[in-house]
């Protein structure tokens, strides 16, 4: 809780605040420009806001840079800080004598407050919680028809999300949305990959065609498998028999060619007609066979020479013939070799079948993959569709729950504000749009009272730590209603900061109540700051 504000530019240097209602009170003549809104803006500044710098810079223009010493108290813990208009992005953490210990960034500071106020919510900053419900003149959240709008251009969808976050109901939706986002991303990647031909583009028609083809290919594959088993056995038996007979044939031919080659050698020897000197052997022979006709034997050579000379033509012819025959047979042997080899390569038949099987399997795989992408995309589409539907249902349910919670609470509060039983305002959210009004009542005062009712409901239902209601909100509300509102404010355990004046126009009880909650009284003669730049002749304290 904000407990103390000290500023040496203030007329009243120190302002002490308390739990519940804290009223900045103006005078009975409703004097303007005395600092009521400015103080509320300063409170917002001390809660981490920047509007005091941006929207109230006239204060700095005229006063020069100044600083605020302030104290937050949580349970038994007291936290002393200084924030200057000069270095407003930083906060000085102090000891109890406001001696600076260290400087921290505003974000760190608001995180600290969020921690201490125990309003840590998923994805929702402290400013986004508090800032929205500090409704101070100059800020853009005073639209009585748009209670959840933070600034004028904020889209209703975003305001709704923040409200959901404040009710801590966004987490479950976010999980859903993240899931959808993930699925959508996945689908986008798949589509993109198909576009870039990284994966095949498959339509429903192609998918069906592929499915049919896969069945066909599988049948072929099965047929081939059985064929291979029976065929391989048959082929082996057949081949060995045939090859055997061919080999037999070949070996006959080889024998034949050998004979012919021998004959060729003999023929060529005869053609050369060489004399063989057999004299020594013949002489030795005579030793054992004295009657042996050596002369006759010696004549054989010359006889042989004579007849071979005569038969030269025939010998040449025979040589030619034998050579031709040898060639022919060798040719046949080569043919046989080829035949045998080709018969043996029939053994590659299973290899061929295996190649075919691999090809078929690859085709089946490829088609399966293609269809896999299609199926995946279909599944993604389905998942996204159902998740989106579920999200819509969930969102509606969550929003309905939240609205009904708020509406019930507003109804309760409204009963306290309008004891004559007037209708309570209702918040209705449909998708990304919402309405906030009282059925059948379009009065300005009612509209502002509704806004107050709404904030009070949130103050009660959520961890929202404090609210601030500036005079423009309150002054339009009829007295009786406002008196009841003040009563409700005063009963709040959380801090409520209001700016109010003309206390004499309210009932004695209400005036007294406000008086008791008054943290600062301002008037034409007692301004917030020591300097008045709204008038030509400036007053210095």
């Amino acid at each position: 809780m904000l407990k103390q504000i000290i500023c040496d530019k203030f007329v009243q240097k120190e302002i002490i605040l308390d739990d519940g209602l804290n009223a900045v009170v103006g005078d009975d003549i409703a004097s303007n420009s005395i600092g009521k809104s400015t103080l509320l803006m300063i409170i917002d500044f001390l809660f981490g806001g920047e509007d005091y710098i941006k929207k109230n810079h006239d204060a700095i223009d005229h006063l020069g840079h100044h600083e605020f010493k302030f104290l937050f108290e949580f349970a038994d813990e007291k936290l002393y800080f200084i924030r200057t208009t000069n270095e407003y992005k930083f906060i000085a953490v102090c000891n109890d004598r406001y001696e600076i210990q260290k400087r921290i960034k505003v974000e760190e500071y608001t995180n600290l407050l969020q921690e201490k106020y125990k309003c840590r919510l998923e994805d929702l900053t402290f400013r986004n919680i508090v800032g929205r419900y500090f409704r101070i003149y100059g800020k853009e959240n005073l639209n009585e028809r748009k209670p959840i709008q933070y600034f004028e251009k904020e889209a209703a969808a975003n305001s709704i999300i923040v409200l959901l976050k404040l009710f801590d109901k966004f987490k479950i939706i976010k999980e859903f949305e993240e899931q959808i986002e993930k699925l959508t991303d996945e689908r986008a990647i798949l589509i993109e990959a198909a576009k870039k031909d990284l994966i095949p583009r498959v339509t429903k028609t192609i998918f069906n065609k592929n499915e049919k083809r896969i069945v066909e290919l599988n049948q072929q594959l099965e047929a081939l498998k059985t064929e291979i088993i029976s065929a391989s056995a048959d082929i082996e038996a057949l081949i060995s028999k045939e090859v055997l007979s061919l080999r037999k044939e070949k070996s006959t031919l080889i024998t034949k060619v050998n004979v012919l080659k021998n004959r060729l050698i003999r023929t060529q020897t005869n053609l050369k007609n060489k004399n063989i000197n057999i004299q020594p052997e013949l002489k030795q022979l005579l030793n054992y066979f004295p009657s042996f006709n050596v002369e006759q034997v010696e004549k054989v050579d010359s006889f042989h020479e004579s007849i071979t000379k005569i038969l030269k033509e025939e010998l040449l012819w025979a040589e030619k013939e034998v050579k031709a025959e040898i060639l022919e047979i060798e040719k046949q042997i080569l043919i046989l070799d080829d035949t045998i080899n080709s018969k043996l390569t029939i053994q590659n038949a299973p290899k061929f079948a295996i190649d075919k099987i691999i090809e078929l399997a690859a085709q089946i795989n490829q088609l399966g993959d293609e269809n896999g992408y299609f199926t995946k995309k279909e599944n993604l589409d389905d998942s996204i569709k159902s998740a989106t539907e579920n999200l819509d249902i969930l969102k509606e349910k969550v929003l309905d729950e939240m609205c009904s919670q708020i509406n019930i609470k507003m109804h309760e509060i409204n009963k306290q504000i309008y004891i004559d039983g007037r209708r309570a305002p209702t918040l209705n959210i449909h998708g990304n749009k919402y309405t906030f009004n009282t059925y059948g009542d379009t009065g300005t005062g009612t509209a502002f009272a509704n806004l107050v009712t709404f904030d009070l409901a949130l103050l009660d239902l959520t961890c929202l730590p404090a609210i601030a209601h500036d005079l423009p909100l309150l002054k339009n509300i009829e007295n009786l209603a406002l008196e009841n509102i003040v009563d409700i404010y005063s009963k709040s355990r959380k801090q409520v900061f209001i700016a109010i004046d003309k206390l004499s126009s309210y009932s004695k009880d209400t005036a007294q109540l406000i008086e008791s909650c008054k943290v600062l009284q301002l008037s034409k003669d007692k301004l917030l700051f020591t300097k008045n730049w709204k008038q030509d002749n400036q007053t210095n304290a």
Partner: protein
Amino acid sequence: MILPNKLIGFQDSIIAKMIYILDAVSLEDQSISSLYNKVKNNFEDINQYILALDVLFTLEKVEFNEKAQVITYVKTDNL
């Protein structure tokens, strides 16, 4: 191949083949070429025919008349 043995049968030996030459030359003298033409069907090839003539010459069963260029049969008294 001149004499029959366990690899060469009598019919294929030169001894047996010589008969065809002797049958031809015993009737009349034969020129070497015409004799060859008459008997070549009985011989494996011309080399075998030459060998048969060589053997017959060695055994003095035929003679070669160089002048007439013919083979003549040598008649022997079998008595």
